[in-house]
């Protein structure tokens, strides 16, 4: 296999990421924890700095020049995100703190319309962020949670989903790409089936929006959530996409400044979308910097990013499969690296994931060890924790080689002691 694109994409972008050029424990850093959070390019750091150096003022609250600049930049970032996920209207994009807050917004504002016996379909593979808010809704309303399990391939079990869904189903809330199993859900198909039964669909796109083109209109989902920090943006900002009519029909989530039209002592009317859902001073600088991140990703091209990550996936799996002690979770990619995300959660024989992570860290390699906020999935897989390497477009084949060599050394180190 040739990785000609690597010379173009990763080599092209690495100078944009100052953090990647450092030594950890005396070794060049190999950052493979991108599913937890991504690194930030200079243009994003500059956007944050420029905003605070030049434009900092509160938004929507002043007629002075700085306030107007800050407002334009903040609303400009909203336009960029709307375009990035192909929303029909900029009013359909609500800034939140992160994906978790976006899900909680829907769970609170829309979830309160649910009644005793209404059903919510989730999957066992959900991140805790897309589980706990619905547990809370179920406790409040008497709605019932139903769960799709992984199939034999360790992907979303579409057949089981079709058997679970019924006219009682009010909501299907599922992730687009699993942060643990790495499979890519057929969300358009899942949505079409849900809509046939009159159910709404929320897509947790935390692990897809940073890595591939995402088109909310093509998916036809009712809501979609993502976190800025996993897509080259800063922490503290994420977004909710929702269909306009649906967002209109939902009551506010949090109350305060910014989200009002007219306020009296005993009541108030609410601002139009999207401000109705943005109470209080938002993360202005962060939102603007997320806009810069979206510009950056778009300039590289999401198609190109995805295609390059497929090449990395193919190489990663080809290498991992040569270590017999590993149990890798989730579906295998094709030889071209298609069919799953550029991440791998695995266990390594006798070596506990924690010990593995410490040993790899000594080699400068950052991976995640633990349950990756998918404890029910780990319980289902009968494993307490796994190690996970997750890649992004700035990772290289050479970095995979460093990771694999360190992994093999770790496995051998433990094996030599155990004999």
């Amino acid at each position, binding site marked *: 296999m040739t990785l000609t694109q690597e010379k173009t994409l990763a080599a092209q972008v690495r100078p944009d990421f100052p953090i990647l050029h450092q030594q950890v*424990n*005396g*070794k060049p850093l190999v950052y493979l924890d991108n599913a937890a959070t991504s690194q930030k390019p200079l243009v994003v750091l500059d956007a944050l700095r420029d905003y605070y150096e030049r434009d900092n003022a509160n938004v929507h609250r002043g007629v002075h020049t700085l306030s107007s600049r800050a407002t334009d930049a903040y609303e400009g970032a909203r336009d960029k995100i709307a375009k990035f996920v192909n929303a029909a209207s900029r009013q359909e994009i609500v800034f939140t703190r992160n994906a978790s807050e976006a899900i909680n917004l829907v769970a609170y504002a829309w979830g309160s319309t649910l009644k005793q016996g209404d059903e919510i379909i989730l999957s066992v593979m959900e991140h805790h962020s897309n589980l706990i808010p619905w547990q809370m809704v179920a406790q409040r309303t008497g709605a019932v949670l139903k769960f799709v399990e992984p199939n034999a391939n360790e992907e979303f079990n579409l057949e089981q989903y079709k058997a679970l869904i019924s006219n009682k189903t009010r909501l299907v809330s599922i992730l687009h790409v699993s942060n643990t199993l790495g499979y890519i859900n057929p969300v358009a198909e899942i949505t079409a089936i849900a809509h046939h039964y009159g159910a709404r669909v929320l897509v947790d796109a935390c692990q897809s929006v940073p890595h591939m083109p995402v088109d909310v209109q093509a998916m036809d989902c009712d809501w979609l959530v993502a976190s800025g920090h996993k897509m080259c943006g800063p922490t503290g900002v994420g977004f909710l996409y929702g269909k306009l009519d649906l967002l209109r029909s939902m009551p506010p989530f949090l109350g305060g400044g910014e989200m009002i039209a007219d306020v009296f002592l005993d009541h108030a009317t609410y601002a139009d979308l999207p401000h109705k859902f943005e109470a209080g001073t938002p993360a202005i600088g962060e939102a603007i910097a997320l806009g810069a991140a979206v510009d950056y990703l778009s300039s590289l091209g999401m198609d190109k990013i995805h295609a390059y990550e497929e090449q990395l996936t193919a190489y990663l799996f080809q290498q991992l499969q040569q270590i017999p002690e590993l149990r890798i979770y989730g579906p295998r990619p094709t030889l071209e690296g298609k069919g799953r995300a550029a991440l791998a959660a695995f266990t390594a024989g*006798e070596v*506990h*994931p*924690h*010990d593995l992570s*410490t*040993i790899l860290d*000594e*080699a400068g390699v950052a991976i995640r*060890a*633990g*349950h990756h906020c998918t*404890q029910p999935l*780990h319980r289902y897989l009968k494993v*307490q*924790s796994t190690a996970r390497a997750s890649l992004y477009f700035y990772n290289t084949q050479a970095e995979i080689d460093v990771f694999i060599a*360190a992994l093999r*050394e770790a496995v051998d*180190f*433990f094996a030599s*002691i*155990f004999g």
Partner: protein
Amino acid sequence: MSLDNLRNLYQQVILEHYKKPRNRGKTSPVHRHQRGHNPSCGDTIDLTLQLDEAGNHIQDVKFEGEGCAIAMSSADLMADAMRGKSVKEALEMIQRFQAMMKGEAEFPKELRKLNVMQGVAQFPVRIKCATLTWHTLKAALELAHSETPEYVSNES
């Protein structure tokens, strides 16, 4: 890879106790039972104690659970060291172990085997792994007369 650092952490003794623990299981009878839990990684430990009739001395300590080499060997080494100790001595040892994790103390000659855990102090993120069993023992000893919580956590 800087194996020197790692050899200091994963000393032979630690790996032997991980691989062939001597104190896995449940004491019989069980006078105290305490569950410990590390919420950030999911590691769990179930400690059981057998005490003398007066409840002043530890006769046996056993553990069950799942965790990394550091957590499991720490539990096994602790169980060995606790046999025959008075509750007061045990509480002092817990304090000393915690101080050792800050690089501020070590154990005297007769308990020197516990000093193999000193290397953990160089790996701050792993200290929680080593102390889980000690936190759990502390709860088992101190909460004896009050309501025992379902589990203790070493997140603080």
